[in-house]
């Protein structure tokens, strides 16, 4: 039993570990030693520095940070608002709207990009950070479901007593319910955050000026060109992009696991 666990963990770690080993090698070492041979100097950060400069990582991190802030703010705000209305009010079309969101999960994102691109092109939002951010906000159905589920466990009597005390619906939502949603918001922020940070396809398609609008995920694609076989540089790049996700993982392991589990239960 332990044997299989160790083998499993070894296979999971091996590809990344080999990257770590290679990223610390000088060019000379890289060309003349086997890939699994450990580097002579574990403090050789030259590759990381070179990558940071060549691939414009600073700009990439800045863009990714801007995207993350707005996308998270937007999708959390819109997601909770929608879930609030759908959960707390009965009105004509409530069920229909729920089903519209549910059905949308069946349509894989890449499939509709053919026509989404055409729409974005016609309103002039291609190659603009704003356009990409709007797109990323609009496709977040999982978190809406997490919020809906969470609202169901908050008793309506809380709303009612606040209304009797003279609060408006807006007050109820922003002052009372929103703070109560904190655990669900943290879960969604982590899941959506990692997803947005790693999103590559749409970033590549919609942010075409790669010199200005590069994100962390698209910055890596530069390595397919002239340095396509200089893996000590590429590995350093891969590790740099991986670092934030790794930190989040170390600190928020529990939330990530429970977030995934909660998000999947409702299907």
């Amino acid at each position, binding site marked *: 039993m332990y044997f299989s666990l160790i083998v499993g963990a070894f296979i999971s770690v091996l590809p990344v570990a080999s990257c770590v080993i290679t990223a610390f090698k000088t060019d000379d070492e890289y060309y003349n030693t086997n890939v699994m041979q450990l580097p002579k100097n574990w403090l050789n950060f030259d590759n990381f520095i070179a990558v940071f400069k060549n691939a414009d990582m600073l700009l990439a991190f800045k863009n990714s940070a801007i995207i993350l802030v707005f996308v998270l703010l937007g999708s959390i705000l819109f997601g909770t608002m929608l879930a609030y209305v759908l959960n707390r009010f009965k009105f004509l079309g409530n069920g229909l709207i729920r089903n519209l969101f549910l059905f949308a999960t069946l349509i894989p994102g890449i499939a*509709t990009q053919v026509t*989404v691109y055409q729409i974005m092109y016609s309103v002039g939002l291609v190659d603009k950070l704003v356009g990409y951010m709007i797109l990323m906000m609009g496709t977040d159905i999982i978190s809406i479901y997490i919020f809906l589920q969470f609202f169901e466990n908050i008793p309506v009597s809380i709303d009612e007593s606040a209304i009797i005390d003279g609060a408006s619906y807006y007050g109820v939502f922003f002052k009372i319910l929103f703070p109560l949603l904190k655990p669900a918001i943290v879960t969604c922020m982590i899941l959506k955050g990692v997803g947005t940070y790693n999103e590559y396809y749409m970033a590549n398609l919609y942010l075409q000026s790669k010199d200005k609008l590069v994100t962390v995920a698209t910055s890596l694609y530069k390595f397919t060109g002239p340095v396509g076989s200089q893996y000590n540089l590429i590995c350093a790049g891969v590790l740099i992009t991986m670092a934030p996700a790794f930190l989040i*993982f170390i600190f928020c392991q529990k939330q990530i696991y429970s977030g*995934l589990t909660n998000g*999947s239960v409702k299907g």
Partner: protein
Amino acid sequence: MGENISNTSKSKKPFNLLSWLKSGKGQRATIIILFMAVPLFLLLTFTYVPFAKMVQFSFYKMKYTGPRTFVGLDNYVDVFKRDDCFRALWLSLYYMGGAFLQLALALYFATLLSFKVKGGNFFKGAMFFPYLVCGIAVGFIFKFFYTRGFVLDTVLSWLGFNLENLPYWLKDTKINNFSLAASSIWRYMGQSMVLFIGAIMSVDSELYEASSLDGANKWHQFKFIILPSIKTIVVLNLILSITGALSAFEPPYVITNGTLGTATYFWVMNKVAHTNQKVGLASAMAIVLLAIIFIATMIQKFVMLKVLNDDNDSVSKKTHRKLAKRNGGVA
């Protein structure tokens, strides 16, 4: 009379928009509209309008700009006639096979890790982390991993394999699709595992105690307690991974650039749409894929209904039998 009525109605309902908005009913209506406006707008513009347009475009021969010609079903005929499109659908089988293997592994490790294991958190974390790595980084990692004489070859040579006998993992057309599917397993196995662990944890622990009193071993516990109670989530993941296999895109996109017979359906579609700008054909391809996914989901619904019914029956029967046995034993 007439005057009277109109008078009273006027004085009774001096319709004032502002005060109506402040009233409970008005506030309700505005909050419903206001709070739903943006998410609904986004959903419609980025999911349903594109979907409708896709259906429309699939009947035309067109580019993103310029004239369109109506061609009827020609694009759909092309999807099945063109070698690259149709062949790509078969490629999904590699990824489906990979998905089955991935779920089997996930189930195995999830079962091990849901019991008390030394270093369990480490193993769980190590196997889960690949899920958080961005797709393109995964691509580079595996391009490096599979290169001749690099990581995989080195490790295999430690195990006593001779480099000469090893295939070219990415160049050999008999093998390269297995290699790519394996990178997918590596990436997603941990995620399924975490989902399964979550499901297994929700199993009533009394059942384990009861069964071990009955002398059940670990395998019996797995077969009769764990598997039936997490059937739903396993089936759900099975179907999700079929959908995922049909829409596999990143491995060929980054690792092989679709060469040497590794172009999956989405890869071909992406090329047709954005490189060749054959928007009509790409739309038809997307519709065909959606139809397949839709059918798969319908089958899922059907199977789930059956499984769920069976499930409830078998669990309750077994529990009853167990409890009866236990009580009988004690008495």
